[in-house]
């Protein structure tokens, strides 16, 4: 007992953790479990923002519901904690109203791909200028470990106690075929490569998508008897293969199989506001005053 008191009364350190500049410190410690991969991904985003040197007043972060949905609440940016699955529509509205802002959607697989799946494909089709970071932990973690659209075949979950029998989504293929201009996948262990990828994705005009395979210790690992998140990190270390430019059709993730990571798509395509201006210019000619134009002054 005395040890506890001594630890609680430890002198406050004068020096500051570098992440404290970007975190809402009144909300830390966060609720994520021990060995969860989401905190690591948040650090990667902070590193990317730091390296880009962006004005943080011009960056907005949006999340839906779920474990990853809490990221917006923890970051000291313009943040928006939206309804379940609707983070991309809110982001699209924000992007149209304020084209000068960098819009980042940071949410989980259950939120973005299952409940918000239709919003995801249509915003990718329209190529709205935003960055979507999807933390894929293969399960609905916050609600108790139900089957998600990304749960691999034969993996157990709370609603598939004998193993999932459905085919999972291949997220990079979904994003690439819907029209995303930048598609990458990394694991929570490839932290520096992930930060570089997020940096490229934010700088890229158009719909860019980064999938992050992250360990879920309390539900996915426990229900499948895979140990802790640290064991999953070791698994990623041994079983991930970097293949830049791989065909997204061939990068399915099976249960405990090889994970192919890398940057798969990096193409140039005019983003939504540019298309809107060009289309109206074609019809109305000089009567049309272009909207946005990059600095949002119009």
């Amino acid at each position, binding site marked *: 007992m005395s040890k*506890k008191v001594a630890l609680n009364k430890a002198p406050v350190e004068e020096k500051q953790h570098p992440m404290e500049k970007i975190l809402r410190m009144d909300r830390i410690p966060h609720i994520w479990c021990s060995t969860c991969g989401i905190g690591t991904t948040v650090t990667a985003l902070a590193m990317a923002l730091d390296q880009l040197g962006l004005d943080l007043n011009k960056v907005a972060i949006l999340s839906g519901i779920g474990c990853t949905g809490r990221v917006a609440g923890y970051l000291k940016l313009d943040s928006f904690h939206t309804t379940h699955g609707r983070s991309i529509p809110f982001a699209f509205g924000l992007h149209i109203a304020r084209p000068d802002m960098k819009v980042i959607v940071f949410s989980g697989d259950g939120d973005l791909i299952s409940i918000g799946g239709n919003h995801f494909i249509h915003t990718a089709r329209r190529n709205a200028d935003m960055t979507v970071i999807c933390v894929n932990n293969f399960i609905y973690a916050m609600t108790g470990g139900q089957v998600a659209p990304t749960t691999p075949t034969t993996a157990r979950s709370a609603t598939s106690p004998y193993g999932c029998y459905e085919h999972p989504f291949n997220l990079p293929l979904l994003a690439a075929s819907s029209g995303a201009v930048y598609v990458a996948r990394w694991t929570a262990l490839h932290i520096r490569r992930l930060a570089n990828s997020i940096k490229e994705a934010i700088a890229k005009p158009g719909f860019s998508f980064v999938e992050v395979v992250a360990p879920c210790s309390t539900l996915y690992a426990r229900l499948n008897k895979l140990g802790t998140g640290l064991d999953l990190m070791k698994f990623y270390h041994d079983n991930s293969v970097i293949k830049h430019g791989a065909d997204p059709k061939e990068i399915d993730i099976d249960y405990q199989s090889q994970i192919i990571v890398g940057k798969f798509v990096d193409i140039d395509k005019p983003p939504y506001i540019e298309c809107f201006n060009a289309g109206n210019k074609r019809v109305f000619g000089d009567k049309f005053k272009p909207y946005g134009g990059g600095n949002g002054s119009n």
Partner: protein
Amino acid sequence: MKFWRTPLDIDKLKIPHGELHIIAERCKGCGFCVEYCPKDVLVLSEEFNSKGYHPPKAVKPEECVNCDLCEILCPDFAIYCLRVEEEGKEVAK
């Protein structure tokens, strides 16, 4: 360290040294920093923090080369490393 050729600026090079700061109360004992420290500076300590986790402790703090891997892998923002400018070992020839 063995070089296949000696770098021309070997006299100017210094192995960086980092000063570790562990915020024990924020730690959830996941062990990422202990597992992935390239110099094996950290171990999980026997002590508990008030949440009941074992925070890491530095057993060889002088070996730290300020690679920042513990800082960026920590999911709980509980460890960080600051570069000590004046210190730093000479590169062995």
